[in-house]
C-alpha cells in the first residue's frame, strides 16, 4: 500500500472506531429512553462523570516530582472553586485558575520559593 493509501485507510479506521464509541448507545438503547434505569443514569451520570474528569485531569496537571508535589494544580484548582462559589461566573473562575496555573508553571515559583 502506498503511503497516502495507508494514511487515508488509517484515518478512516480511526474515525469509524471513534464514532462507534459515540453512536453505540443510540443504536442499542434508543427504545429504552423511558426506562427508569436509563432515566436514573441520565440524571446522575453527568455529575459523576464531571467530578471524575475534574479529579483525573487535576491530578494529571500537577507536577508531582517538584519540591511541592501537586501544589501547582491544587492551588489553581482551589482558586477555581473559591472564585466560582463567590461570583458564580464560569469564565471568571476559569480565567483566574488558568492564569494562576500558567504563572506558577512559567515562573517555577513553587520550586524556587522552597529550594532557594
Amino acid at each position, binding site marked *: 500500500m502506498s*503511503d497516502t493509501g*495507508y*494514511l487515508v*485507510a*488509517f*484515518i478512516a*479506521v*480511526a474515525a469509524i*472506531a*471513534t*464514532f*462507534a*464509541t*459515540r*453512536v453505540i*448507545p*443510540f443504536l442499542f*438503547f*434508543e427504545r*429504552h*429512553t423511558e426506562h427508569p434505569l*436509563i432515566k*436514573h*443514569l*441520565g*440524571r*446522575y*451520570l*453527568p*455529575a*459523576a*462523570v*464531571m*467530578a*471524575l*474528569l*475534574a*479529579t*483525573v*485531569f*487535576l*491530578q*494529571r*496537571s500537577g507536577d508531582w516530582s517538584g519540591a511541592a508535589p501537586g501544589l501547582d*494544580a491544587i492551588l*489553581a*484548582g482551589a482558586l*477555581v*472553586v473559591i472564585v*466560582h*462559589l463567590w461570583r458564580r461566573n464560569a*469564565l471568571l*473562575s*476559569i480565567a483566574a*485558575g*488558568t492564569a494562576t*496555573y*500558567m504563572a*506558577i508553571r*512559567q515562573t517555577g515559583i513553587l520550586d524556587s520559593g522552597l529550594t532557594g
Partner: protein
Amino acid sequence: MNPLVFRLTLPILFGYLPLGMAFGVLFTTQLDYAWWAAPLMGVVIYAGAGQILAVSLLTVGAGLLEVFIAMFVLNARHLFYGLSLLGQFRGAGWRKLYLIFGLTDETYSLLTSRPRSPNTNHELDVDFRITAFNQVYWVIGCTLGALLGRNVVFDSTGIEFALVALFIVLTIEQLKALGDAFPVWAGAAAAGISMILLPPAHQLIGAIAIVTGVLLLQYRKLRAKPGAETSHHV
C-alpha cells in the same frame, strides 16, 4: 444566539486551541505526511487523546485492526455519555448524527450542564452550535500547529488548564442543579480508586465503569424502597 454560544464555549476555545496545536506540532515534527492530514484528522476523527495516540500508531505503521482496537478502547468512555443523552437528543432530526459524532468530553460536559428552556427545538439548535463551535476551535488548533511546527513562539505553557478548570466549574454547577452530592463524591472516589489501581491510559474508563456500577446499585436500592427517592434526593 451565536454570542451566547461563543460565551458558553469560550473556555473550550482556550483549551482546544493549545491542545489542537500540540497535536499539530507533534504530527508535523514526528511524521513525513502532508500537513493537511492533521486538520483532516480533526475534522473526521475529532478526539484529542485519540489523535495523539494516532500519531504514535502512524510512527510505527500500525496495522489497521490494531488501530481500530486501540482507538475504540481509548474512547470507550464515550459509550457511557450517550446513555445519558438518549432523551435529550430525541427529536433532533438531521442534527442528531452530528451531535453524536461531536460528543467529546468537553462537549458532553457543556451539553449536560447548561440550563435548558422548555423549547426543545431551540435548545437542540444551541446544542448543535455548541458542538460545531467546539470542533471549529479544535480544527483551527490542529491547522495552526501543523503549519507552524516547531516555530510556535508564544509561551502558552499551562493554558490547557482551562479544561481542568471547566470540569471543576461544571462539577459545582451539576452539584447545585442536582441538590444531591452523592454522584459527585462517587465520581471523585471512583477516579481516586482508578488512579491508584490502573495505568493512566485506562483510568478514565475504569472510573466511569466503577461509578456506573455504583449508580446501578443506588438504583436497585431506591427501587427496593419505593418512596425513598423523594426524601433522599431533595
